[in-house]
């Protein structure tokens, strides 16, 4: 497969995953503001911190409020990570590899493209309740994943698409856990109160983990929640599960069985086994924040190694 095509597959799915996460984060935050007492209702700043866009936000805004954040993360054409831009970029990547994907998949991303353009034009963020927009982005993304599953052959392109999606998912899961965990922990007076439960439940809902978590663990406890989101073997959005499937795809691409065939496989293999043999109590004892920080760096290294191994035209020119 062309290096350029592999690169575009990877980014196409990565952008759709990002848009879906942003949409869910905002939907959940919006719901929280309806349920929580006013003095702890500021969900918006941590959200922008979570997505990693806080510096840019401060450059562009003097104050913070619901509408501003919804605009910034959802629609702002000047924010490269806004849902609007994610969908524009996903669609542009899809367009550049149109012959590699199916008509159904193209029509879906193209539909989402016109949907966000229309959303910007209609100034959805000014609505009293913009949740229908986020709902549609979530549904649209889920349909997008479904079409990929049902129509795309499991060749290299599909695997690069899966890697892009899973690395993005692992990144966002770790970020929201990092921010929320530390926000929620230092209020021992709230432990077990309705407010406390609402907030922990919201964290799980932000990553579509609430139902599956309840089924497995029942009670909401910080350690179990952290464990579920980082180390769970079955939940499709846990970091371990994301990393191990991305690792599997890298192996399918290179055809290597035992050990590793390139730097990307090496990096991801190491991370996978670290997660596989980790224990949440050790992690918490030595500092969850530090642990997640280190994880972020590893994810970035994996991304760079994939770029060097597969997408870089210079590198691939020297392979004969």
């Amino acid at each position: 497969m062309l290096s350029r095509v592999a690169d575009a597959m990877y980014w196409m799915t990565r952008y759709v995953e990002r848009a879906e996460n942003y949409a869910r984060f905002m939907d959940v935050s919006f719901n929280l503001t309806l349920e929580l007492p006013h003095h702890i209702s500021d969900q918006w700043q941590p959200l922008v911190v979570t997505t990693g866009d806080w510096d840019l936000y401060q450059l562009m805004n003097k104050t913070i409020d619901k509408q501003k954040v919804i605009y910034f993360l959802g629609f702002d054409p000047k924010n490269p990570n806004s849902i609007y831009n994610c969908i524009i970029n996903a669609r542009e990547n899809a367009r550049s590899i149109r012959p590699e994907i199916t008509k159904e998949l193209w029509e879906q991303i193209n539909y989402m493209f016109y949907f966000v353009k229309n959303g910007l034009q209609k100034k959805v963020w000014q609505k009293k309740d913009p949740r229908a927009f986020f709902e549609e982005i979530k549904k649209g993304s889920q349909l997008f994943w479904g079409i990929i599953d049902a129509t795309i052959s499991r060749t290299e392109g599909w695997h690069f698409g899966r890697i892009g999606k899973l690395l993005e998912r692992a990144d966002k899961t770790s970020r929201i856990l990092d921010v929320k965990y530390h926000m929620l922990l230092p209020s021992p007076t709230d432990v077990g109160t309705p407010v406390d439960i609402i907030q922990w439940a919201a964290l799980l809902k932000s990553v579509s983990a609430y139902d599956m978590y309840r089924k497995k663990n029942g009670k909401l406890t910080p350690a179990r929640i952290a464990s579920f989101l980082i180390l769970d073997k079955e939940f499709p959005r846990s970091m371990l599960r994301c990393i191990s499937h991305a690792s599997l795809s890298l192996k399918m691409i290179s055809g290597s069985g035992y050990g590793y065939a390139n730097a990307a496989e090496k990096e991801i293999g190491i991370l996978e086994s670290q997660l596989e043999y980790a224990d949440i109590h050790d992690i918490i004892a030595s500092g969850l924040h530090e642990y997640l920080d280190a994880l972020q760096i590893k994810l970035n290294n994996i991304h760079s190694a994939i770029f060097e191994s597969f997408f870089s035209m210079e590198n691939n020119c020297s392979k004969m």
Partner: protein
Amino acid sequence: MPKISFENYDAEGFFDEMFESDKQVKSHYALFYDRIQKMGIKKLNILQHSTDRVQLSLGMTFNVYSDNQGIERILHLDIIPRIISGEDWDYLEKGLKQRIYALNMFIDDIYNDQKILKDKVIPKELILGSQTYLKQCIGLKPPKDVWVHITGSDIIRGADGGYHVLEDNLRCPSGVSYMLENREILKRTFPEVFEQLSVRPVMNYTHNLRDMLESLSPTGDNSIAVLTPGIYNSAYFEHAYLAQQMGAELVEGRDLVVKNDIVYKITTKGLKRIDVIYRRIDDDFIDPEVFRPDSLLGTPGLFKAYMKGNVVLVNAPGTGVADDKAVYAYVPEIIKYYLGEDMLLPNVQTYICDRADERQYVIENIDKLVIKQTDASGGYGMLIGPKSTIEEQKEFVEKIKKNPRNYIAQPTINLSRVPTLTDDGIEGRHVDLRPYILYGNEIKITPGALTRVALKKGSLVVNSSQGGGSKDTWIVDNI
């Protein structure tokens, strides 16, 4: 009572494809006419509206250069088809085949023996001094001696209904994807009509295109690529569409690299050889080492690999020499010279400004003529005499005097009309016709075409960049 009244439909003296001058419906349109009478105008408008949506969802869009930020637009598809009788079509096919065979022989001759110049059938200076004559191609012998593998001639019908070739488009003609997708859309719009009328199918085009490209493969590996300038090119939709329909790789110049005069694509697993390239990049841009050094669209070394026979470029570089509007005037002589036959499908009368007497006539009659720059296309660089201002005419007279070789003139042509859905109901709009011709082992012409339609009332300019739209074109036999 018919639901749609054509009482006020006025052909205004133009040749109408659907109605006789006494408003009788022509026999090849009869069935379609009956069908829309059963539907009524409201239903037609609904169908038209849903067609626009289908085009958007398929991504049948093009970027308009003059717009800021490259706005994507659809090429408006008018749902009333342009219908041509099988009999007319068979005649067009014969005429086009004759023309393409002769023009191909002409190009081969020009870059090799130049017999036609030595025999003084065409003035030497006209060819050798032309910008479209590529010295780099001298001595080139492409596989099977075929230079023009893909052609999209522009054909018009004058006031008497006679067909004329307006331009030959021997370089990178576009629009074939619209011929194919328009048909898919119209089959959904008028299923009952298709059921009753046997419209000749166009589906084979991409199949034939792939066969033709494979027949040229120097290695027999059939590793075929479509070379595009990228997603911002106005014809990108078509490049992607054709690559997809053929199962070919869609590449940009930066995806290719030439090593030891062999062309490779850059893949995740290293370099893989490419041996046939259907390139949708103009000659000037394909290789910065040989042509425009500032081109970022092409691939360095591509031309040399081609000259060595390690890769085939489709169409061959240099075909523009026969596409030159000044050479066009000589096509009757070209056909006579190479085939010994009279031209079957005529040209439009053409004045060559390089000839003193004809130049004088053009300058004196500039308000009645269409002036065309010989090396421009897409409706640019032209003056439509009767619709121009005195200043514009003066400007063109100066241009012609300064560089007569660069201009030709033709009488204003009365393009035929087809009923078209407008905001004011159904009105006649001017159309042309672009069939697509493939030349590999033999010439194959798909029985269908892109009909371009000037959507603005009274306009004769059908180019998509200037407010033109399209129609599906049906070749029908059982009438």
